[in-house]
């Protein structure tokens, strides 16, 4: 009995020491105040994903994309203006809480988010909270706009435009958050691509779109994701339509004992100019 008590005390002491080391956001533990209305969107301090990395370099791609605006590749902007990271700043993942180890697959933290009120050993956080931690470290690829005719080439009115994003980037991304005794995996799955064509029309595709292949009939429409312009872009800025694509990623998580659920979606976006010329009717009837 005494041994058990001592062991329990030692475990609790170690756990408390580790808790002091790892200060995950207080909001998640509940009952410890808040960071104010902007605390929940401050980079580096909350479970908010998507704000520790900047967007890609505009105009650097030969495919005509002006760069993604998602959470994926890009240069690191530290952990927000003026810092704010209570941990270490990882080049790939942004602000990582002190004591946590992060890889592409996992973020592992040595203790729970907060101890129960009234003392005692810290309990593992609720799996839903751990899921939010995993989501924060998901890194979704920035979409790159592809089309046929290509974004840099001239489109023609009445000629079907095929649109797609790289199929290799259209796949689920997962991250596992681990604390002692508990592990939760969050998965982001791309579900839809909303294309704003720049002429006021929006096309929603439920997939990456079909890449145009040599041998495909250019007069045919994309079987999965296409659009046909009816007006020239001559009157637009730069004489081009500003095309954007927004990808919605559904977020699900699975945890211990069959626990699981959904979290709000994540979004990535990209833009590209498309020049569209009026296709002149060719009269083959030999008239006039």
């Amino acid at each position, binding site marked *: 009995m005494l041994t058990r008590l001592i062991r329990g005390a030692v475990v609790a002491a170690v756990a408390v020491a580790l808790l002091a080391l790892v200060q995950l956001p207080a909001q*998640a533990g509940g009952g410890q105040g808040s960071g104010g209305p902007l605390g*929940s*969107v401050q980079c580096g301090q909350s479970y908010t*994903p998507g704000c520790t990395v*900047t967007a890609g370099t505009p105009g650097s791609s030969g495919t005509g994309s002006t760069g993604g605006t998602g959470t994926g590749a890009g240069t690191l902007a530290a952990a927000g203006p003026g810092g704010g990271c209570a941990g270490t700043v990882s080049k790939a993942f942004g602000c990582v809480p002190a004591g946590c180890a992060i890889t592409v697959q996992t973020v592992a933290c040595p203790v729970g988010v907060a101890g129960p009120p009234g003392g005692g050993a810290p309990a593992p956080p609720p799996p839903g909270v751990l899921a939010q931690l995993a989501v924060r470290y998901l890194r979704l690829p920035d979409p790159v706009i592809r089309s046929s005719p290509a974004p840099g080439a001239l489109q023609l009115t009445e000629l079907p435009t095929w649109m797609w994003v790289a199929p290799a980037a259209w796949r689920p991304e997962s991250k596992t958050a681990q604390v002692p005794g508990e592990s939760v995996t969050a998965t982001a799955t791309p579900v839809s691509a909303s294309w704003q064509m720049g002429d006021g029309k929006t096309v929603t595709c439920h997939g990456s779109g079909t890449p145009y292949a040599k041998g495909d009939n250019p007069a045919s429409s994309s079987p999965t994701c296409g659009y046909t312009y009816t007006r020239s872009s001559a009157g637009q800025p730069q004489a081009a339509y500003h095309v954007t694509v927004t990808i919605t990623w559904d977020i699900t998580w699975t945890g211990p004992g069959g626990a699981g659920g959904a979290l709000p979606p994540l979004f990535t976006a990209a833009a590209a100019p498309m020049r569209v010329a009026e296709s002149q009717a060719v009269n083959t009837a030999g008239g006039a």
Partner: protein
Amino acid sequence: MWQAYVTASRTADYQAASLAQYAAGGALSVLTHGLYQNHQDGIVTRGQPTFDPAVKIVTASGGSPVQANVTDCADSSRWLDYKSGRPVGGQPQGRRKIIAKLQPFDGVWKVTYLNVGKEGTC
């Protein structure tokens, strides 16, 4: 965008459709998940923040605007988190530097990148 966020934050409405009218991509992820965290924690907000934005327009070679970079300073001293009808204690009061990037979506400018700094950064 901030007014849409402030309004949504009064009920922690992370599904507010107005958010997507002003934000897209990573910035929309930030706002959505910030509100979701408040929803999970039972936190709503009252009051009103003030901002002090400075806008720098980035133009393409032909002169048309393709991007706007905004540096902002948010004062949330009159905008507070509430839980169970009471203000949450210990909320940081300092002003926060905010960096945002906007891009046109079919003629509508939306925030696509958002980086909110810690209190006391401006």
